[in-house]
């Protein structure tokens, strides 16, 4: 390394690798590769696992070089190797289960690491928070919060998907690696401190999601939704990229904070600044589905396999908003006068249009897709508040939305398995009597989405409204209220169908869904909805502290 360093031109240096800061990404990526390896190895799965053990031991040995890493890291690496070997030996005839278990473990490990990082960062510990890897990465509060949410959503997604994918015969071995790699992209996106990393993060997570949406290879709807997603995703990426190019042209850098400061300099050509911001805004608006850049959402949500939709709704939104927050609220705070009016209008239109279009839907997945659009509008209010309060509110909102959407799409996976088809509102008639627990949980999620007190949805909306009023955006708060009322109508419609309509005969013949991994996942989400709705202070604290060291 030193020999190379001597050859470098003056002023150029190889960045230090902050292993601790990027360890969640490494964990997720490593796990993805491991699961892929074990899946493709087929009959020789046990040998592959042994090789993986050797590789992990080798890394542990490197880490054990004195002064390089804490003993606990070495122990964890060895532990990971042994655990995967043990699991492989135990489950070598059931590769999908093996993949699922390893995936859950990897997500759990990510949560653990993120918790440690959070702890360490709060105490000024060894985790550097910004300007890592030549200013490419900022492991700040926003990034850590996103890691928590993404990994949590990942665990629940695995639970939701297992039986569903088997039923539909789309339980491909590549599903779990893709899930892990998507999550890698999401955490990368959330910790991006450079517009290039934003672009790469978005592309990684999108690419994996395109494939996951299309994993039902013989299902036309799935293929169509995947391709539509890809085409519009690439289309919007082009806009985002053009915006990045203009920012680079105007400032000579793509580092978010530096570029933001440069853009605010009056000497920078105004045309480039405006066009750059506008184009990036279009790009982000596509990714988080703000009207009028939302048209892919309902189709894709409807067509993709339901567990994938759940993950898409829950985790993608968090990651995309994290980047949105970082670039706009964080980087271009001084230019707020340019983009805040634009985003405010987009948010207002989004809230209303999303809610209104959801009302006329019959297919539940599609309805939830439109409701996702409306919810993106709510979350965007925290963005235009351009304050720590607003950022905290958006982060908390995204967590809340993740829980609610995982829960409601989770219910749909269970019901789709039961009825072997896409669920329309009419298919829910009488569910309240047939499967009261399931129906009650669904009602809970819907009430939470509607923002009824006692649920996390209320607390989250409350935080958003508070941020809006605090920022003097009372009119947006009022639009949110109007949208919530419209939205309440269609959530209520579903509840009416479940509890107040008679059950038709052909539904009564179907078996009641038994307890399963999916119902466990849904229950976890339900508990979270209530727990965070009744006693949210700890998590609000987390979100607000996450917001204070963003940048």
């Amino acid at each position, binding site marked *: 390394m030193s020999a190379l360093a001597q050859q470098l031109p003056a002023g150029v240096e190889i960045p230090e690798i902050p292993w601790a800061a990027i360890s969640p990404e490494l964990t997720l990526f490593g796990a993805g590769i491991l699961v892929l390896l074990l899946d493709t190895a087929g009959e020789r799965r046990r040998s592959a696992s042994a090789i993986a053990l050797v590789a992990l031991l080798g890394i542990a040995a490197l880490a054990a070089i004195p002064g390089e890493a804490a003993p606990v890291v070495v122990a964890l690496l060895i532990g990971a190797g042994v655990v995967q070997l043990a699991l492989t030996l135990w489950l070598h005839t059931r590769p999908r289960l093996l993949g699922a278990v390893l995936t859950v473990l990897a997500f759990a490990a990510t949560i653990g690491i993120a918790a440690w990082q959070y702890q360490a960062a709060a105490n000024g510990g060894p985790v550097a928070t910004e300007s890592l890897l030549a200013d490419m990465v900022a492991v700040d509060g926003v990034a850590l919060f996103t890691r928590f949410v993404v990994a949590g959503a990942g665990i629940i997604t695995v639970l939701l998907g297992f039986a569903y994918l088997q039923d539909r015969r789309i339980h491909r071995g590549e599903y779990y690696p893709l899930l892990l790699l998507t999550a890698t992209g999401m955490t990368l996106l959330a910790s991006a401190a450079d517009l*290039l990393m934003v*672009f*790469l993060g978005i*592309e990684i997570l999108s*690419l994996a999601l*395109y*494939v996951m949406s*299309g994993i039902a*290879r*013989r299902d*036309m*709807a799935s*293929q*169509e939704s*995947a*391709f*539509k997603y*890809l*085409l519009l995703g*690439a*289309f919007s*990426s*082009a806009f985002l*990229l*053009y915006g*990045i*190019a*203009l920012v*680079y*042209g105007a400032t*000579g*850098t*793509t580092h978010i904070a530096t570029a933001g400061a440069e853009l605010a300099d009056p000497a920078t050509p105004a045309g480039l600044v405006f066009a750059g911001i506008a184009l990036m805004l279009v790009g982000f608006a596509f990714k988080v589905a703000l009207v009028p850049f939302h048209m892919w959402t309902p*189709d894709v949500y409807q*067509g993709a396999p339901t567990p994938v939709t759940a993950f898409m709704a829950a985790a993608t939104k968090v990651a995309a908003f994290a980047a949105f927050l970082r670039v706009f609220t964080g980087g271009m705070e001084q230019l707020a006068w340019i983009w805040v009016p634009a985003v405010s209008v987009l948010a207002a239109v989004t809230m209303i249009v999303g809610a209104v279009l959801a009302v006329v839907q019959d297919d539940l997945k599609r309805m939830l897709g439109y409701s996702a659009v409306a919810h993106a509008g709510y979350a965007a209010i925290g963005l235009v508040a351009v304050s720590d309060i607003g950022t905290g509110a958006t982060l908390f909102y995204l967590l809340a939305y993740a829980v609610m959407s995982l829960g409601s799409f989770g219910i749909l996976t269970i019901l789709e398995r039961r009825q072997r088809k896409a669920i329309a509102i009419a298919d829910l008639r009488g569910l309240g009597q047939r499967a009261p627990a399931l129906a009650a949980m669904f009602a809970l999620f819907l009430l939470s989405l509607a923002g009824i007190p006692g649920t996390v949805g209320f607390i989250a909306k409350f935080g958003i409204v508070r941020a809006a009023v605090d920022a003097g955006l009372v009119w947006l708060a009022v639009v949110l209220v109007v949208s919530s009322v419209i939205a309440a109508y269609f959530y209520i419609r579903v509840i009416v169908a479940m509890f107040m309509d008679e059950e038709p005969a052909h539904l009564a013949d179907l078996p009641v869904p038994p307890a399963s991994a999916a119902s466990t996942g849904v229950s976890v989400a339900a508990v979270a909805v209530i727990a965070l709705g009744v006693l949210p202070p700890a998590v609000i604290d987390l979100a607000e502290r996450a917001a204070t060291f963003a940048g």
Partner: protein
Amino acid sequence: MSVPAGYYLILAAALFSIGAVGVLIRRSVIVMFMCVELMLNSVNLTLVTFARINASLDGQVLAFFVIVVAAAEVTVGLALIVNLFRLRASTDADQVGALRA
């Protein structure tokens, strides 16, 4: 007589707009996809021009990454297209649900 850098930017803007229009007006999914590639290329042209204006190679590095991303996207996109057409051939040759490609 010489070429101000702005000329390249105008050309790139023109290519980008043409690509965007192409995505909007074409019906063939493959051609739409090609139009997106055209848009990405025009962005690259912009980046390279700005690299020259700013006298830094960062723009070229960005363009390099864009090419990598585009290649990856094309791989997945074409796989999806092949699958779509195959499915369509095996089911109904004319009407394909919502896509109507």
